[in-house]
């Protein structure tokens, strides 16, 4: 981790990419993509997250354990969202109020 020091050029490149993506996601929001607008917005946000995490937070040079910790955290957030939505998304399927 301490050994590798990235060049300024890398950081500037990442910054520009992030700014461009911000502009893109704002612009895209004004285009009617129907249900896909959420998907696009979240994908762009995910890309920006990866850029910040890998380059600015030096995840690229980090050891396996740190990567596992990050992956685990995101997976747990996924568990919270997915299993709770398994309730809200399936309400009313039985056709009986409240079930």
């Amino acid at each position, binding site marked *: 981790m301490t050994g590798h020091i990235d060049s300024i050029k890398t950081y500037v490149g990442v910054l520009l990419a992030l700014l461009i993506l911000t502009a893109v996601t704002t612009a895209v929001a004004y285009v009617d993509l129907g249900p896909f607008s959420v998907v696009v917005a979240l994908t762009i946000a995910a890309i920006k997250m990866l850029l910040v995490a890998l380059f600015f937070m030096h995840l690229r040079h980090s050891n396996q*354990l740190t990567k596992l910790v990050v992956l*685990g*955290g995101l997976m*747990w957030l996924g*568990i*919270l969202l997915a*299993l*709770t939505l*398994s*309730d*809200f998304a*399936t*309400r*009313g*399927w*039985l056709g*009986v109020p*409240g*079930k």
Partner: protein
Amino acid sequence: MITTAAPEREHYLNASYGIKSWLLTKDHKRIALLYLATITFFFFLGGAFATLIRIELLTPTGGIVSSETYNKLFTMHGVAMVFFFLIPAIPATLGNFFLPMMIGARDLAFPRLNLLSWYLLVIGGLFALFAMLAGGVDTGWTFYTPYSTTYSNSWVIATALGIFISGFSSILTGLNFIVTIHRMRAPGMTWFRLPLFVWAHYATSLIQVLGTPVIAVTILLLFCERVFHIGIFDPALGGDPVLFQHLFWFYSHPAVYIMVLPAMGVISELISVYSRKPLFGYKFIAFSSVAIAVLSFLVWGHHLFVSGQSLYAGLVFSFLSYFVAIPSAIKVFNWTATLYKGSISYDTPMLYAFGFIGLFTVGGLTGLFVAALGIDVHVTDTYFVIAHFHYIMVGGTIMAYLGGMHYYWPKMTGRMYPEGWAKLSAVVIFLGFNLTFFPQFILGYLGMPRRYHVYPEEFQVLHVLSTAGASVLAVGYLMPMIYFVWSLRYGQLAPANPWGATGLEWKTASPPPVHNFDEPPVMTHEAYDYSTVIQEEIEVG
């Protein structure tokens, strides 16, 4: 302060004196004793509330306290026991004290963070204590909305803030443990040479770190809704109270594993030492701890089967709930198999271990009842569920906690506890416990709802039995308080390894020096290799 009759050998207790040496200590051993004092206070506070509840339930009309006071009693019993005793109990005392020693480290990775964790628990405890003294809170320890945000006019905010602050104590302890286990193991201490106590605390820390923040944000949203009327869960604004239950139980079910996993770690140690045998299926027990930590996050919906959750979500959660039962079964079978062909001694900690396995088995099996959708509809929110989780919390965690306290008392204080009295109190606790909670299974299936202080007359006999059991249990819990304090002054001097155990923590003096080891330890043998210990004992003669 405690002085040993032997020539003055410096150890962590007499290394320094005075209030500052305790309140500003960075020594994980002293912080463990600070935690011990704090949680013992809350244990007896919660116990007092429980005694009042049991007395109130002696008669169907329950004339001793008003319904408002009764509601506050069971709420404060729940809050004090869950958040200020059970969750910190084993990790904060035995974990803090022995985890660094077991892996051969001088201290935890972040000693100051460890002291901060204790202060957070104390500050949180003071908030909750203030709420109790100022008038109490009557929402149940579950704080379900909209009652807790709109209809309760009791000290909800003060208690919620207390739990919010003490939650960070749990998060930071978990973080401290994970980093310590990963980064500070002595040379030779590979993962599979770690004592199973450490594996159990590793799994517990995973839950503490991944689960507790969700209850923190849930309490924050409850605070905003109650104080600023911004309604996240307010049905009048279109919010959904069931969402609160999802967020609450996402943490609170894994929290029950925060309470029981460390107990399993203690039991693994006790079973192995007192049958002088390595545990049967070491890897299976170790990985079942981690499996419990992971699976415990997938099952919380079994608390919501009748709460308005959709049927299909009920199916998903019931199915996953049966998965989390399997690792617990594996552990119980492996413990029992360890006894086979062992050399079993009946010291007090082993009695507690036997008690734990028996009662935890009953608790775990009744968990299969409440996980079955068909039966849970009838038994949820009744005394059946109360009996189920008390079998695991009291029959499991508290038995293991007492077992661990007796097992490690010589190492912590340099004094032996009185064996006779200790055995007696273990038996009294086992009998009192069963008399208190087994009748509640029957009461529950009969339909006695929980949190009732007035009940139909036909339930009275079972309630009287339960109250009788509670008084026996109370006596059982008071006895250790007495003889432990007594032993500090008059107890036999404890040798470095009174039980012939194999852990690194037994390879240093009792009580241990400030930096745990005189020379940095190296782990040379497999976990639980008793041949090395017997060799030493024979040489020492």
